[in-house]
């Protein structure tokens, strides 16, 4: 029983991270029908910036909580900046091009960003400081869920609630929903579509960066390649839930995270990645619209 709880907790942690990244994929796809291949790299860059900032701060004598806050904040700002720039350079010029072009551009940017970090920093794994403090009240259940796990779950939950509030109740959220439904019409009623799209990228990048910082502290090391795997898995989650559907991304992340944890725990951890890819392939073949998505009929 305890093992099951342990696995469930681990599954929820995975799910939280996948959800944070998946939201970025799903929002961008919903609005411009593009798979932002480079999104995983934003997550990775968020983690790297946090690592660098915390490294500098540690050396200059800051401590504990202030490092976490500052590193997180700066990582998020930078991720937003990268997301914004990415869209402006690699995707905006291709807004009206056939679907293949932005996809290839996205793959190109993904490669570019991976190698940019590799060359600017190092190909090796870098140790990530444990930024999340240990809370005393977690002692009793520390063998099932520790402080880092708690922080991850809580932070993700808060972020997702914040996102929902933003989409549902703010003006920019309304603009985003309108643009997703009908870009031309939104433009005609005065929505600045370019800004809305930039905003979508920025929000997605912020969430991904939060995920990156959390994962970095949790796992303890990062390298330039973590974006790829995390990206594919998060994308799987987004597709599983129905790409373009925000609650779907969260649901998909839950399903994927938990099943991965149980499979790794009860069957074998070697084939863990195959599992994720396998799920992805199966959904796309059997039910491309995902769990919560609607099947779109072809207009001939």
């Amino acid at each position: 029983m305890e093992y099951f709880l342990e696995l469930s907790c681990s599954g929820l942690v995975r799910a939280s991270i996948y959800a944070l990244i998946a939201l970025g994929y799903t929002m961008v796809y919903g609005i411009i029908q593009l798979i932002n291949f480079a999104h995983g790299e934003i997550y990775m860059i968020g983690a790297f910036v946090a690592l660098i900032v915390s490294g500098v701060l540690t050396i200059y004598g800051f401590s504990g909580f202030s490092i976490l806050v500052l590193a997180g904040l700066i990582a998020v700002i930078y991720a937003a900046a990268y997301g914004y720039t990415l869209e402006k350079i690699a995707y905006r010029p291709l807004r009206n091009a056939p679907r293949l072009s932005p996809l290839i551009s996205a793959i190109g940017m993904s490669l570019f960003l991976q190698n940019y970090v590799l060359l600017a920093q190092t190909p090796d794994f870098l140790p990530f400081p444990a930024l999340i403090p240990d809370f005393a009240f977690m002692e009793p259940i520390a063998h099932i869920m520790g402080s880092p796990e708690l922080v991850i779950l809580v932070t993700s939950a808060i972020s997702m609630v914040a996102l929902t509030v933003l989409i549902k109740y703010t003006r920019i959220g309304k603009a985003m929903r309108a643009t997703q439904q009908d870009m031309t019409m939104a433009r005609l009623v005065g929505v600045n579509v370019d800004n809305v799209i930039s905003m979508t990228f920025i929000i997605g990048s912020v969430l991904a960066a939060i995920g990156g910082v959390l994962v970095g502290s949790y796992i303890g090391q990062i390298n330039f390649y973590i974006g790829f795997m995390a990206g594919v898995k998060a994308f799987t989650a987004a597709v599983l839930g129905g790409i373009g559907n925000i609650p779907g991304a969260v649901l998909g992340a839950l399903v994927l995270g938990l099943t991965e944890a149980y499979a790794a725990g009860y069957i074998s951890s070697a084939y863990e990645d195959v599992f994720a890819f396998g799920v992805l392939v199966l959904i796309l073949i059997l039910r491309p619209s995902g769990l919560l998505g609607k099947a779109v009929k072809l207009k001939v």
Partner: protein
Amino acid sequence: MVDNVKQSVLVALWFVFLTFPLMVVKVNTLNNIVEWRWMNMLWVAIGAFVLSIVWRWAMARRQLKNKKAEIGEEELTQAGLWQRSTEDPKIFKPVLTVIALVTLVFPLVVDIYQTNIMVLALIFVVLGLGLNVTVGLAGLLDLGYVAFFAVGAYTYGVLNSFFGFGFWISLPIGGLMGALFGIALGFPILRLRGDYLAIVTLGFGSIAKIVIENWEEVFNGAKGIANIPRPGFFGAEMSITSATVYTYYLMILMVVFAIFITNRLKDSRIGRAWMALREDEIACVAMGVDMARTKLGAYAFGAFWAGLAGVIFAARNTYINPNSFTFMESAIVLSIVVMGGMGSIVGVIIAALVLILTPEYLRAFAEYRMLMFGAVMVLMMIFRPEGLIANVRRKYAGRKVVTEDANV
């Protein structure tokens, strides 16, 4: 002009900000010091400024080109320099002769190291030509092409280490295995289009690598398979030098073969069906083309060549392990096809040679190779989506009786 300069300064500042943590700061946790690389900041500033100016100029040109296309002025899809030069026998024949001579004499005048590199480049030429059919002609975006490459290589590796099969037997088997996998993997994804197709094939490619890595009994896992024999000449023992030269000529033959076959296919019933499938699948099927058979044919054909190339790759390196078959490799071959111009044979050859040889010959740039791949992919899509060599369609000699009643 001044405006551009002002904007570019701002852009440069933005990029300095953007790249600051990664380019300038380096944290050395061992010695607990921070390395501040201010020179990098200067490079970024200058680079961003220059690139911004160039970018603006290029974008302006591109806007103009698109506007012109809209009103239907020339420019669009006109026969390019390339087509005119190939059609003119006075230029074409001598150029071809020179190329042929250089190709034949190459290994005799350079050292063995260069020849070996050229063999690798030629392997990628074959990969490019194979994927060119699947992606370029038929429009099926396969991001997991490396899986078939691995199938070929590991077919040889496994056949050799378990059964002692030699190169020449394994070569056709490798190709066949590739084709079979092409059909097997193509079958469940027939209905997928565009993005979804790309992601699923990416999944396939990754699954292939992981399976190879973990299935110890058959594939020897991460340790790989070693002692794979080079191609033999009727069982004769050859020195490494001779074997490499031999492999080189083998590859030249294979490339010629591939060019010949692909060329014939482009101007055939099947080739046209592939293109129509790419252009508009619904209309294509409505005109009587069997989508399943045609698509599977494209997958199988592309995978066949990847399989062949894989066998030669294993023979060249005499050692294979899963790390040679990652998404990077798929991305490289895709770049080759995209850069070359989807469907253009010569474009793909040039692109493959450039992409593989440049990092070798410009050693200073080797590290930056993947970086440049990425950048080139993005830039090509923005500024020259049609590739190095634009789409040229064949003119058919037929009854071109243009009578005066041109109006119906």
